[in-house]
């Protein structure tokens, strides 16, 4: 409900609401993007871009679902594009340094990862992309399986299976970590 109020304020020109949106969703989006990409520098670029694009459209933005879901979907789309571009660079042999800036670490680090998150993020990197997307969007984006299914253009059962398999794998990968 707070999100609807924030969007309403932004629709009416109240720029102070931007800070609340940022503060509320910054950590979640950074976690989400870093888990999807397993690359903190690229994740930071994506999240910054998501926030700036949101701000640019905030005056006319219409909230139809949850703001968290909307921002998470934007970040996930950007992460997917980033991975596609990285694969393209690998197959075409384009030098990463000349292909873009997203893989270049920023002078100052934005995302400060806890040890626990570093382990989770590393384990996420072991999952197939579809499973990683489902687990990340569900646990860090708070997205229901139904919405993830729409986004992945597949059935809800497939999404639930991906989640189950993904979680099982993470469970075995993280098992020793969780005992610590």
């Amino acid at each position, binding site marked *: 409900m707070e999100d609807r*109020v924030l969007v309403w*304020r932004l629709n009416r020109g109240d*720029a102070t609401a931007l800070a609340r949106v940022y503060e509320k969703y910054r950590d979640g989006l950074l976690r989400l993007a870093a888990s999807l990409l397993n690359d903190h520098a690229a994740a930071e670029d994506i999240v910054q871009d998501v926030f700036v694009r949101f701000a*640019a459209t905030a005056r*006319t933005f219409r909230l139809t679902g949850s703001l968290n879901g909307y921002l998470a979907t934007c970040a996930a789309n950007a992460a997917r594009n980033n991975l596609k571009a990285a694969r393209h660079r690998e197959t075409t042999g384009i030098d990463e340094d000349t292909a873009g800036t997203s893989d270049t670490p920023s002078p100052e680090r934005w995302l400060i990862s806890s040890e626990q*998150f570093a382990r989770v993020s590393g384990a996420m990197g072991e999952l197939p992309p579809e499973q990683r997307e489902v687990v990340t969007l569900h646990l860090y984006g708070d997205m229901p399986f139904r919405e993830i299914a729409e986004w992945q253009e597949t059935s809800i059962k497939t999404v639930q299976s991906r989640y189950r398999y993904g979680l099982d794998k993470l469970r075995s990968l993280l*098992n020793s970590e969780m005992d610590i």
Partner: protein
Amino acid sequence: MRSPEETERFIRDAAVNADEARDASVLGKMREAYASSTPAVSAQRPDYWGLVFESRLARFAAAAVILLSLIIVVGQFGAFVAGGDVAWADVTQRFQSVPFFYASIYMKQDARSWPLHCELWMSKGGNARVHVGPQVVFGREGQVTRAFDVWQRKDVEADRAATDLIRKLAMSGEFSLETLIQCISTGKLVDITPAMNAQAAIGEDLVVFHAQLAADPGSVRIYALRESRLPVGLRISDPAEGFVVDALITYPKEQPAISFDPEAFAAELRDPANSATSLIYLFLNEPGAGDMMHGNPPQ
């Protein structure tokens, strides 16, 4: 081997932080982008009900959250003063001391519409059960545990409205109606101190707390019993739209633990002997009568 639930918790609890210097830079870029975008909305009378409650069910659940959070959050309205010797804090504290309550909530979107109905059962231990439409949703400590569609007779993903209701009520400490009111007036509204409405209660056994929303004709009223300090009725209304939410709160003896047990509910779900209607009230007792499912006489 840890359970899947523990794995989920471990992943969810993995925190990150952010560097403050970079925060300032990103926020600056956001403000720049916002400032250079084109204004599109004219400053009309704020349609905040339409804003806050966009879909029918979301609108409904959100209104219920406002109503119930109002009485759950102690001290939120420190200046809320009633007549006689009953203070708002007495009412909220009394409400917090009850082990169980049931709320039946009706909402009308405008003067011409039929009301929508939602039911909520909450117990002190953090258990919640919500009935909205065909769904019965169980929650514990702010998290939905399981949700069922009694017509399709299967597990479903909880309706977002019910999820919000369970989540927000458990997190009422961070939900502030005062903030909401200030938000909807885009920061212009400062004084929200409600006044006693002596004309709203002719009987001395009833006290009425009243908050007028200065940015709009909307108002909030809470009806409480003078002697016991228990809130029994709540109303949000916007006379301009004919929008009304009414909640009736009752305090029966605590319901059996099984009535909050989603596993026990699931076990009964496929039994064709249980009708969809009886499933909605499965394991719940009607105070002073029998169980709500079969209408059995009280034991």
